[in-house]
């Protein structure tokens, strides 16, 4: 089975080499004349004040949590999708119960306004 993945290893090495070559050739050929003004982070000409790494809205975090939960749901659907013809209506019912509970989760976050962006 691992033999099947030999071509994947080949293309990984290949792509890795190309990408690394691009970065290093750019390093070698390109000039390097840093000066203080050039190395400033770009803020449309203003001098940046403080660190850029500030805090962010908790909304983005909510999105990531929702993503995890529904990603797990999608992942559970794949084995079923491959075999659902053989599993028949019983398998369908199983997945419907599973989906209904997660549908409740979606309904909850929808009602709570976690999906609202203003």
């Amino acid at each position, binding site marked *: *089975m*691992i*033999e099947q993945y030999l071509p994947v290893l080949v293309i990984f090495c290949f792509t890795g080499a190309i990408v690394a070559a691009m970065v290093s050739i750019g390093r070698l050929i390109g000039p390097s004349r840093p000066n203080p003004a050039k190395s400033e982070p770009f803020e449309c000409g203003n001098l940046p004040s403080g660190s850029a790494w500030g805090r962010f809205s*908790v909304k983005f*975090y909510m999105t990531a*949590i929702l993503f*995890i*939960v529904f*990603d*797990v749901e999608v992942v*559970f659907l794949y084995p079923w999708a491959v075999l659902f013809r053989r599993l028949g209506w019983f398998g369908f019912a199983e997945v419907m119960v599973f989906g209904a509970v997660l549908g409740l989760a979606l309904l909850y976050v929808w009602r709570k306004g976690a999906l609202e962006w203003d």
Partner: protein
Amino acid sequence: MTTVPIDWYLILGAVLFTIGVLGVLVRRNIIIIFMSIEIMLNAVNLVFVALARQLHSMDGQVVVFFVMTVAAAEAAVGLAIIIAAFRNRQTLNADELSLLRW
């Protein structure tokens, strides 16, 4: 190709688990501690999959499925707790957070 003895996988699992334990013991940043726990979970997953292969039983692989789901749920709630704790105490140091006793 699969001529690697099972012991090697189990030793690899043990080494990973130990790294996770050390991370929990040594680091004080609560997010790093959390990540070390993830390493421990993954070490266990590795042992599950190796023994599934050894015993020709799919159960080990199915259990890994559930471990991943639990890890996802744990990450969602655990990190939410960390955010809430950070908002209250402005620190991520586990020693200082232990006063909260949640």
